[in-house]
């Protein structure tokens, strides 16, 4: 072939190259289109469409949940963001606690929950809690930590208020024996 490109070929190659260059952003355009289309049509809500709203919530009843926070011989400040919430049994609720490390070094702590009255404990189901694992805070660090819970519908009628109390214990290192000792102390 000669070095010169025929004008008709040049015209066609420019068009074809432009077309394929445009198809690249089309791939990206599928991302917002997908979201828009799914929201518009509800197609992505596969597990939600036609399913009635959570029927497990007992709207007729309200239970008052009070929060209490303590630290056991630790340089931490620990408080619930809200002092109490009012919930319907069966409802999924999220609350938050705040903890601040006032010492000049990292400290590891483990929170131990307790319930008042005691028999409310078995009807109080925590789905997610900072007390499920040890918390390590760097020097001066403050942290907000969520608790997600459900109060079960079969909570005895006489219980109208539940107090959830957390106490933080210091865990020295990750040595099992010491951690056990701390737990035994509670």
């Amino acid at each position, binding site marked *: 072939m000669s070095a010169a490109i025929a004008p008709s070929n040049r015209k066609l190659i420019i068009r074809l190259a432009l077309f394929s260059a445009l198809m690249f*952003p089309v791939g990206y355009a599928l991302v917002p289109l997908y979201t828009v289309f799914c929201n518009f049509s509800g197609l992505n809500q596969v597990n939600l469409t036609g399913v009635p709203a959570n029927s497990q919530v007992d709207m007729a009843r309200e239970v008052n949940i009070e929060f209490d926070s303590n630290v056991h011989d630790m340089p931490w400040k620990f408080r619930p963001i809200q002092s109490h919430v009012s919930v319907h049994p069966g409802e999924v609720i999220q609350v938050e606690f705040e903890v601040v490390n006032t010492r000049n070094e990292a400290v590891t702590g483990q929170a131990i929950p307790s319930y008042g009255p005691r028999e409310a404990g078995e009807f109080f189901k925590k789905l997610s809690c900072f007390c499920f694992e040890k918390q390590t805070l760097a020097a001066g660090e403050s942290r907000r930590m969520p608790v997600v819970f459900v109060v079960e519908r079969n909570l005895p009628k006489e219980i109208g208020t539940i107090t959830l109390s957390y106490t933080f214990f210091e865990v020295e290192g990750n040595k099992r024996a010491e951690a056990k000792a701390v737990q035994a102390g509670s």
Partner: protein
Amino acid sequence: MEATAMGHADSHGHGHQPTGLMRWMTTTNHKDIGTMYLWFSFAMFIVGGCMAMTIRAELFQPGLQLLEPERFNQMTTLHGLIMVFGAIMPAFVGFANWMIPMQIGAADMAFGRLNNWSFWLLIPASILLVTSLFVPGGAPAAGWTLYPPLSVQLGMGMDLAIFAVHILGISSILGSINIITTILNLRAPGMTMMKLPMFAWTWLITAFLIIAVMPVFAGAVTMLLTDRHFGTTFFSASGGGDPVLFQHVFWFFGHPEVYIVILPGFGVVSQVISAFSRKPLFGYASMVYATASIAILSFFVWGHHMYTVGMPVTGQLYFMYATMLIAIPTGVKVFNWISTMWRGALTFETPMLFSLGFIFLFTMGGFSGLVLAMTPVDVQMQDTYYVVAHFHYTMVAGALFSAFAGAYYWLPKWTGHMYDETLGKIHFWLTMIFFNMTFFVQHFLGLAGMPRRIPDYALQFAEFNKISSIGAFGLGLSQLLFLYVVIKCIKGGPKAEAKSWDGATGLEWDLPSPAPYHTWETQPLVK
């Protein structure tokens, strides 16, 4: 016309060209580039085939014998990527380079340098893919579909694969632009669109598919890349993304891709059947329209790969009916091939045998595709060996058989020698028998519930897996016979006439065999 072509071959000898490696590095000749594409794809076919052998060796009996499960997953992933992007697509680009200019009466492809570049891009891409096996973490192991979240979590082998896909995509887009321009602008006077040989027609449509969907795939893997390294969350739910989104984008590319792989094969088979039936192709115009319909429909059926990932019934029904609709133009093609043979003067040379094998087996693959198109059935079969059997009936018995048909059909034109017909027939029968031995039993495995992409299986699957593995080893070894036949044909053999097959039609058979280095410098006049 022959005299003209020969005259040019003499005056434009190889004397003033670079020799040795530099000749191949710098060549802009469509025949040289076609030859390189064909050899490259055969080399990749062997590499991907070795991976398939490894997979079947591991599956020869239950339990883990040869491979770590991670390696097994890398083998299935690379086997898929290499066979689709390294073997089948370049093979048909090789055919296109060799045959389309000769078939339409053009002196060369429209853009010679671009053509050279699109071939040489394949080399770094294939090196990237293969070397990913040796980096820490190994090759990508998320399947050739590269689904997140796995593909976001894998090691750096995945990055190599992503770059390889980028380069392969650029290569095939450049090749396609070249083919479209050649077919649209360089046809000989009188060669109207509806006189184009079927192979050129199917390639024209394929090339449009490639420039439409390869950039989308490049976009999808770029999103993977930025999710992996640059903090975007297109596919990660933790950042508001959705892994299912990748599947939609991927299959928007992926379904047209499977037609990219098969349509040029349709073209080859159409020409071979017509030649060995000594009749013009039945229903030429309907063939063209059917090919175009398949190509257009391919953009609207991607969801049938995703029935089980979560889709409302309305969506499933739409994709089910749209998918079944594709059976209509495909059926038109199959019936046209059969009608072409009807009352024809049939002879059964190797290209014809491979074409007949293609029709028989590809139709079976089409039927298992219809079975899988049905949502309630697919929910049972998703990711079982039934799917593996289905797509190997279309990819191997479809694309590979038609590539063999084309290779045997045009070998005399390329080399100037007739290949060894007896060995060719032996190659066909070995391939036919071992192919079915390998893949037919996989239908039963799938129906019985054996999942794909797993290195181990329950004991009740042992017998069929053993049969399948023995078939696979046979199928792999038989392909070495093909290599031998081709080399023997290049080295010598009975002299091929210009028109090597007495029923063959088309401009390429007006040229002497072997086709001179430069052909149709003076364009022929098509009546």
